[in-house]
């Protein structure tokens, strides 16, 4: 838990790249730390200790204040300086004295959290007369078994951070030392986890890794670059939590994802490919055949027979109106003055063009997405295996084989960038910028395909026992390394170009 910029994770990333290569912008500028939940707890405790010293209060009280102020440290400090007593009362570590008025409370002597033991009367939860009881400063005393059950219930309801005295409308908060006195083992761990989750969720500088099942947390410092590479291998955007998506903005990614999953596309499809039955308004898709349509009763239709083109009843149609495959009425309608009909038709045409455009971009986006997935799930591990074999059988030093993995990883990076360029391209208006963009995109695609081919080249020819000459291997290495460099540089330029405006 040193300074984030000097953390070990940063160093780890650097190890993946060889020393003499310039770092790509994403890694060079990153200033974040990947933390485990236990480190978050440590951080929470550090801040509580710091504020305990700073404000001259117990750690229990500091924790309650920090939780109350949603870990907004400046706000807590300001309010504290402004009116210490009010902060204590509002956060629930001090009972408001009788006749309390905030304005008059400055400089008064202050009390603090302490446990008192009540012995009179009965426990106000179980109504039993038990002597062994606990109470906060307010004196509302309950027997120990009721306290335990109460706190366990707060834990179960996930409201234990900020949990109050069980007395209705008593504002005092239960201090952590007391909670941990009652909850042991797994329950204590759950409490600590909840406390950390609260901290992470309230604090804008922290975010869970969004990968399913990953329990790492990123602590983020730099507001410029959002790409976060988690220890679990997931590469995501700190700002929006989606997969890292350079060069596209978070907003575009959001629209794109909504578009890909949403009903809206289905609706576009329905508009483009179906017409409503003129009688019962059920949508009907014509996927083959002639213009004679029957709204099938088997699928909840009404049995109405109509013409696909002019939507008039089929009974009006015969060989004189053009027969089964042509409809003169339609031609008349389109050339005539029936605006409502023409509007419907043009809406459908527009939807169809729009849909075609979307499908074109989505297919390419999806191809890169799949290729990226296969490369990271299969090719990189396979490459690591091969590297090990080359090392074991042919005694190449591992350091000399690193280029293989780097190249395979570059393919993944390129695929990811290319994938997002199709999202970018979909939203980019036609014009000079788009022409240039498409040219660069095509080039990167070519480079990536070529690099991918080189990466997939079987290494068996360098593996066999009777090969003594190592020069073919080094030739391959030099070719791959060169191409890797070219592609990487090209990708960086494309990213910078798009992010800074291609024609600006």
């Amino acid at each position, binding site marked *: 838990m040193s300074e984030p910029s000097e953390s070990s994770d940063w160093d780890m990333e650097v190890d993946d790249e060889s020393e003499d290569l310039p770092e790509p912008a994403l890694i060079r500028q990153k200033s974040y730390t990947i933390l485990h939940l236990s480190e978050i707890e440590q951080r929470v405790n550090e801040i509580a200790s710091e504020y305990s010293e700073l404000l001259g209060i117990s750690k229990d009280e500091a924790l309650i204040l920090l939780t109350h102020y949603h870990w907004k440290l400046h706000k807590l400090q300001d309010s504290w300086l402004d009116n210490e007593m009010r902060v204590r009362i509002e956060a629930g570590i001090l009972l408001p004295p009788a006749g309390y008025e905030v304005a008059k409370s400055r400089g008064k002597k202050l009390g603090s959290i302490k446990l008192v033991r009540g012995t009179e009367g009965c426990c106000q939860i179980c109504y039993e007369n038990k002597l062994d009881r606990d109470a906060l400063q307010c004196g509302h005393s309950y027997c120990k078994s009721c306290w335990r*059950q109460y706190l366990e219930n707060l834990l179960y309801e996930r409201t234990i951070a900020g949990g109050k005295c069980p007395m209705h409308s*008593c504002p005092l908060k239960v201090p952590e030392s007391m909670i941990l006195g009652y909850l042991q083992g797994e329950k204590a761990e759950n409490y600590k986890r909840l406390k950390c989750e609260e901290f992470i969720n309230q604090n804008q500088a922290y975010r869970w890794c969004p990968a399913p099942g990953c329990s790492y947390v990123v602590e983020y410092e730099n507001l410029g670059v959002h790409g976060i590479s988690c220890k679990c291998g997931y590469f995501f955007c700190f700002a929006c939590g989606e997969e890292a998506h350079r060069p596209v903005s978070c907003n575009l990614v959001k629209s794109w994802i909504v578009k890909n999953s949403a009903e809206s596309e289905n609706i576009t499809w329905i508009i483009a490919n179906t017409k409503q039955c003129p009688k019962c308004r059920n949508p009907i898709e014509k996927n083959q055949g002639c213009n004679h349509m029957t709204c099938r009763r088997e699928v909840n239709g009404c049995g109405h027979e109509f013409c696909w083109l002019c939507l008039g009843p089929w009974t009006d149609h015969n060989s004189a109106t053009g027969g089964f495959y042509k409809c003169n009425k339609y031609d008349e309608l389109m050339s005539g003055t029936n605006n409502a009909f023409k509007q419907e038709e043009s809406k459908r045409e527009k939807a169809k063009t729009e849909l075609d455009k979307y499908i074109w971009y989505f297919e390419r986006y999806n191809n890169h997405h799949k290729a990226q997935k296969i490369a990271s799930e299969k090719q990189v591990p396979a490459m690591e295996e091969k590297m090990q074999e080359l090392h074991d059988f042919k005694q190449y030093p591992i350091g000399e084989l690193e280029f293989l993995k780097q190249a395979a990883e570059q393919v993944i990076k390129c695929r990811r960038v290319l994938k997002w360029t199709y999202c970018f391209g979909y939203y980019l208006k036609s014009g000079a910028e788009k022409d240039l963009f498409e040219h660069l995109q095509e080039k990167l695609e070519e480079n990536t395909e070529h690099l991918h081919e080189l990466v997939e080249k079987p290494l068996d020819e360098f593996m066999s026992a009777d090969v003594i000459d190592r020069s073919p291997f080094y030739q391959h290495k030099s070719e791959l390394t060169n191409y890797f460099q070219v592609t990487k540089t090209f990708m960086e330029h494309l990213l910078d170009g798009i992010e800074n405006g291609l024609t600006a």
Partner: protein
Amino acid sequence: MLSRAQKRLQREFEEMTRHYQDTFPVEIPENDTNRMTWYVSFIGAEGSIFAGERYTLEFRFSDNYPIEAPDVIFRGAYPHHEHVYSNGYICLSILYDDWSPSMKVSSVVMSIQSMLSSATRKSRPANDASFVSYAGGRSPKTFNWIFEDEKC
């Protein structure tokens, strides 16, 4: 052996019969051997628009009572109040989010009585029909109640 909830309810029952026999009479169905369902009736407070009207509340207690709030609904005739649905469900924060184990049956009845007293006219919740059809037989605690005003 009585459970913690049963013991506490027994004491509450004694208190109710001792202090509130006339104002909040309690009836426990004979077939309920666990005595975990109570019917408590009360009369609309003098001077309020519900004055003199008798209503009955149904309390269902869980084994986790009083840590967990009881389910409380109107049984039979229900008052026409903007926080009382026609299936008897009540929108009152102390029955849900603001429940505290220090509360008890008598304090709940008093809160409901006072909620009725503060109304100036008889009305029904705006979304009554849709809520009631949606609610089915579920416990009132399973809904996300939004408490629109302090009295709610």
